[in-house]
């Protein structure tokens, strides 16, 4: 059969941020993938070299809207190690609470998007309603729903009052109950089982070979979690478990994320109940000595790395950021091969890429002449219809 190139994007329907895929298909089956992620290059690494340590933290929060705390924290952890700062435990606990709330809102958001991709909009609406709880808590704690601005080198910028702590604790049981319902839905609802099971399968050996990170890797039985392997902020003091699964498909990735929600909730509760007394920050020096630091962080999507070199001035000589999504692309390329076009949205969404909405795809024939055009909403709809007709949904 003739192989056809199917361009998808640059505006992707599943999540935020644009990417362009050139999917090579043979009939209904995918045989290859080529991608272009150039659309949102903003030169942040270069800009970070021109700013001092106070001004660079807000910049790094804006690398990603969802994992804004992750980037600020990975940078602060690194610079604090270079400066040999002893950050007060209260600040570390508050950072942990924000980090886990961020993980929760990211995973809940993902679950909603994944449900939407398979046409299960009830769960989509439920999750996004429940996500407001985490957003409200974050807003009360930091003043912002996104780009929290709570971190700085040496500590945090806002303290928690006793009233806030009890108010947050009182809202957790309801959230816990809802997460329990998601577990039941994902394990029991035919709509989800039929579209998630056996789709985008990645074996443990493949996950290791292609450098997969985060929930995608843990769903294939690779138990890498930086929070345990290379503990930062307060994780070494808190009881929690690394979540893994052996399914290795979209179903497994969903289970891992939901069980991580439960773990995160436990961490937040522990931190609030055991919040140490004391100051929330130390004065950081203006300059950092000459050093090289490799700072690792478990972001909601997987291992995030900030490699930085300081040179005795008030700014970094080089900051090299490796985001989890970049690490996961290699495995997406692999897990899409031999799958159906109809499953593209759900497989791509399953790594939870930082990518985006409302787009069109252009179907080209082998000479590259435009034949037809469909929006990605239509592709999702096509996916649902295809599955219905094949009796998978």
């Amino acid at each position, binding site marked *: 059969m003739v192989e056809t190139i199917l361009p998808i994007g640059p505006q992707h329907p599943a999540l935020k941020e644009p990417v362009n895929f050139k999917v090579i298909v043979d009939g209904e089956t995918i045989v290859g993938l*080529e*991608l*272009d*992620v*150039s*659309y949102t*290059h903003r*030169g942040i*690494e*270069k800009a970070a070299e021109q700013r001092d340590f106070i001004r660079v933290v807000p910049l790094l929060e804006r690398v990603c809207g969802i994992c804004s705390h992750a980037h600020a924290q990975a940078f602060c952890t690194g610079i604090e190690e270079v400066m040999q700062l002893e950050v007060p435990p209260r600040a570390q606990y508050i950072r942990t609470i924000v980090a886990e709330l961020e993980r929760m809102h990211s995973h809940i958001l993902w679950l909603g998007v994944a449900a939407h991709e398979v046409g299960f909009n009830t769960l989509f609406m439920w999750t996004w309603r429940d996500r407001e709880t985490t957003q409200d808590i974050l807003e009360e704690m930091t003043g912002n729903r996104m780009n929290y601005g709570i971190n700085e080198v040496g500590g945090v910028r806002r303290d928690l009052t006793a009233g806030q702590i009890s108010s947050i604790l009182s809202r957790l049981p309801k959230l816990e109950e809802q997460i329990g319902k998601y577990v039941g839905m994902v394990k029991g609802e035919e709509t989800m089982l039929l579209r998630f099971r056996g789709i985008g399968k990645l074996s443990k050996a493949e996950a*290791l*070979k*292609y*450098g997969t990170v985060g929930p995608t890797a843990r769903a294939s039985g690779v*138990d*890498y979690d930086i929070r*345990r*392997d*290379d503990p930062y902020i307060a994780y070494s003091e808190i009881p929690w478990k690394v979540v893994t699964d052996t399914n290795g498909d979209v179903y497994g990735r969903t289970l891992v994320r939901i069980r991580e929600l439960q773990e995160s909730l436990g961490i937040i509760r522990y931190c609030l109940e055991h919040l140490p007394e004391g100051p929330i920050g130390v004065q950081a020096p203006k300059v950092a000595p000459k050093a*090289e630091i*490799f700072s*690792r962080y478990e972001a909601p999507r997987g*291992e995030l*790395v900030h*490699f930085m*070199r300081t040179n005795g001035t008030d700014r970094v*000589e*080089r900051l*090299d950021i*490796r985001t989890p999504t*970049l*690490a996961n*692309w*290699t495995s997406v390329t692999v897990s899409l091969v031999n799958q159906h076009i109809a499953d593209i949205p759900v497989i791509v969404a399953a790594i939870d890429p930082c990518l985006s909405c409302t787009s069109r795809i252009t179907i080209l024939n082998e000479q590259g002449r435009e034949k037809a055009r469909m929006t990605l909403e239509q592709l999702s709809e096509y996916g649902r219809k295809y599955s219905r007709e094949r009796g998978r949904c």
Partner: protein
Amino acid sequence: MSGPLPLEDVKKALERFGPVEQVRFNRIKVKTVPENVREALFHAQALLACDRLIQISALDNGQSFELIYHLTGPHRMVIAIAIELPRDRPEMHTTSDILPPAGIYERQIYDLFGIVFTGHPNLKRIILSEDWPRDEFPMRKDWKPKPRTPRGGARQEAP
């Protein structure tokens, strides 16, 4: 997850390639020359169970380019293999055949630093927009931002 890797084991496996240094309790750095990288990666994989490439960091220190391959494995230590490349001839053999994730990182470095990875199966532009000049590499230290030259996106037609 296995126990941490003792410095002696790393020395035994990688010392022939260059000086081995423990920079932090779970970070070990080996300095070597570009010709030895592939062999060092093979040794790290076979003898130290480093089955995972975390990142290839690239730097421009003014005199030369530096590449640092960060590896990890079940021991959860980070083994860094560092090399320097001359500025006038930035070329390096690809490692994407040994470590598949290296492919996408090398494309990124090629785009931002202009380091050519010979033998790479698909060394194409990935980060910068398609109209970016071929001879400008923004992460090099001698490149200065040009705020008034728009790149990428739709152009406004002259009225």
